[in-house]
């Protein structure tokens, strides 16, 4: 289907299913129950899942295929956001031109940064991209205030021209972003028994774009161009002595991943029309690196999983405070309750970074291929278990595999 082989088609269908049924999958607990705070199916967070998924998919095209570790990808995200907000200010509240402009501007920006940074490889490349991103951040924060509105961040106002739309609604408010009339914030809530599921127009727009972005990356991975990028990662020397200049290939990969970041930035602004400089900060660049490595760099679905994983932690774990912990452990005697709360406290709430850090270390140490490798090992284990049942116990021909993790 669509020029994909059977395995890739299955993968694409899985991604489509996950994206389409996310409102159900992410809300497994009845609202109002004690577990409801683990529900992630509210529009704001679901949008963030897919937007950062797009960001990480794009980053993976550069890092996973060519091995060039960019530490400044958030710059493109920020540039995309600013472009989109300017489109809302000047043209109309339709998200399509905003997203397109975000991609174009981010693409142009990445031509510039990529052309300079790709003169070096390895750690020097990373440092150059980091320097560029920090430069962009600081410029957006100070000198470029007329364009970026500095510390406050770029926002919509009532006296923006919006030549194709209206400056203000009839009620005198700022109009909302829409896709040919469908408002991005429109949400339909479906109540089934104790459960409630939110279907948000903005989320579905992001999800469809994410599926499309995933499909493009799938095609890039399987194409001759993708083979060239993997050859760049594997051995640039040999590529040079085979009569091929690796530079244009890496630059093309850099621009593509920059445009993915711009797309993510544009979508972010479309969901919530404001843009601030902190979107370009190095922590944001580092986050996408974490997402990609955590999910599995160089794998197709890894970055999406990693993005979901980190965003879930950021939004769900950070909300567990001491009160919630006391509720959970209320059935225990007082002394034990306090001790347990004391022990768990550093890992939740504001300490969610600690949990994430530990998980990240565990994954990198024991599963260098990320969450995807974890999944593969699990499925191999299960499959072997099934085969064992069929063949009956035969210890001689099924030697125990050396454990990868010390048990």
């Amino acid at each position, binding site marked *: 289907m669509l020029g994909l082989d059977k395995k890739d088609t299955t993968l694409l269908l899985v991604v489509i299913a996950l994206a389409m049924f996310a409102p159900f999958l992410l809300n497994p607990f009845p609202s109002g129950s004690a577990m409801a705070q683990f529900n992630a199916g509210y529009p704001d967070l679901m949008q963030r899942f897919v937007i950062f998924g797009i960001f990480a998919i794009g980053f993976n095209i550069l890092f996973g295929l060519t091995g060039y570790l960019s530490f400044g990808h958030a710059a493109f995200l920020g540039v995309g956001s600013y472009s989109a907000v300017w489109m809302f200010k000047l043209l109309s509240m339709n998200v399509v031109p905003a997203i397109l402009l975000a991609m174009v501007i981010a693409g142009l920006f990445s031509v510039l940064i990529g052309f300079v940074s790709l003169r070096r490889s390895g750690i020097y490349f990373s440092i150059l991209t980091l320097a560029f991103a920090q430069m962009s951040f600081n410029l957006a924060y100070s000198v470029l205030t007329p364009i970026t509105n500095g510390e406050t961040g770029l926002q919509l106002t009532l006296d923006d021209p919006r030549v194709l739309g209206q400056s203000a609604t009839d009620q005198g408010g700022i109009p909302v972003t829409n896709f040919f009339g469908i408002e991005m914030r429109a949400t339909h809530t479906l109540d089934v028994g104790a459960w409630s599921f939110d279907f948000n127009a903005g989320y579905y727009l992001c999800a469809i774009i994410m599926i499309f972005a995933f499909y493009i990356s799938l095609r890039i991975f399987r*194409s001759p161009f993708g083979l060239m990028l*993997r*050859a760049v990662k594997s051995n640039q020397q*040999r590529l040079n002595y*085979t*009569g091929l200049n690796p530079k244009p290939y890496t630059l*093309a990969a850099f621009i593509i991943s920059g445009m993915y970041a711009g797309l993510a930035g544009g979508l972010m602004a479309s969901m919530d029309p404001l843009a601030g400089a902190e979107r370009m900060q190095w922590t944001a660049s580092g986050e996408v690196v974490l997402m990609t490595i955590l999910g599995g760099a160089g794998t197709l679905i890894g970055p999406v999983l990693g993005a979901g994983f980190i965003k879930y932690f950021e939004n769900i774990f950070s909300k567990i405070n001491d009160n919630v912990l006391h509720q959970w452990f209320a059935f225990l005697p007082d002394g034990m309750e306090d001790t347990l709360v004391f022990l768990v406290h550093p890992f939740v709430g504001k300490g969610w970074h600690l949990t994430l850090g530990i998980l990240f270390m565990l994954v990198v140490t024991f599963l260098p291929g990320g969450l995807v490798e974890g999944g593969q090992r699990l499925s191999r284990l299960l499959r072997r278990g099934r085969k064992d049942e069929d063949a009956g116990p035969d210890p001689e021909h099924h030697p125990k595999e050396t454990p990868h993790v010390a048990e």
Partner: protein
Amino acid sequence: MGILEVKGVNKRFGGLQALGDVNLSVAENTVHAIIGPNGAGKSTLLNCLVGKLIPDTGSVSFDGKSVLGRTPFEINQMGISRVFQTPEIFGDLTVFENMVIPAFARRDGSFRMHAFESVSNEKDICIKAEQMLVDVNMQDKIHMHAAALSRGDKRRLEMAMCLLQEPRLLLLDEPTAGMARADTNNTIDLLKEIKDSRDITICIIEHDMHVVFSLADRITVLAQGSPLVEDEPHNIRGNPKVREAYLGEAA
């Protein structure tokens, strides 16, 4: 006038004179061997030919055109392929993918988003790549990861990749180093067949005299960065200067 002309090449690394006034002329469709003790400057000379190093003085020209100042990929496009002393292959890719890249790298070097667009018939190229793997006796390893190959196989793969490009000049840097005798003989047979069956000039650096004397039409002996003698193999064998350079015997 040979296909490869090296004139008055000097190369200095700090205080070390790696190459001193090297002149070399390789005639078309011959096998030219360069021998010499360790540190004689053989590999430095080769690096000057493929654009990895630029000589301090002197000129290097291939087919009448200077190669100096050109990048390695441009020099490759002129028709020079090189097999390295330690195999340089795409370790993360399969053997077949390794073969596909040189097979499709047409000699004009321009960038193509669809990297194989320049090729008129993809199927022909795939058949050619497979045939070349049969020639080097690696057809059963076609789907293996190149990094998992044995050292000898990596070397053979690299040679197959270079040959697939149909170069006019093939540079071999110790192609049989570390190989078992049987593998060495296979390599000799392969190279003999190549030189008889197509228009190709081969320049080979080798320590194994068995290989050198079975293949070479002409031999240059380098010592301490300068050519000592250049002659036909049977004259080199008994040359007292060569014996001295290699073994330190008094002439």
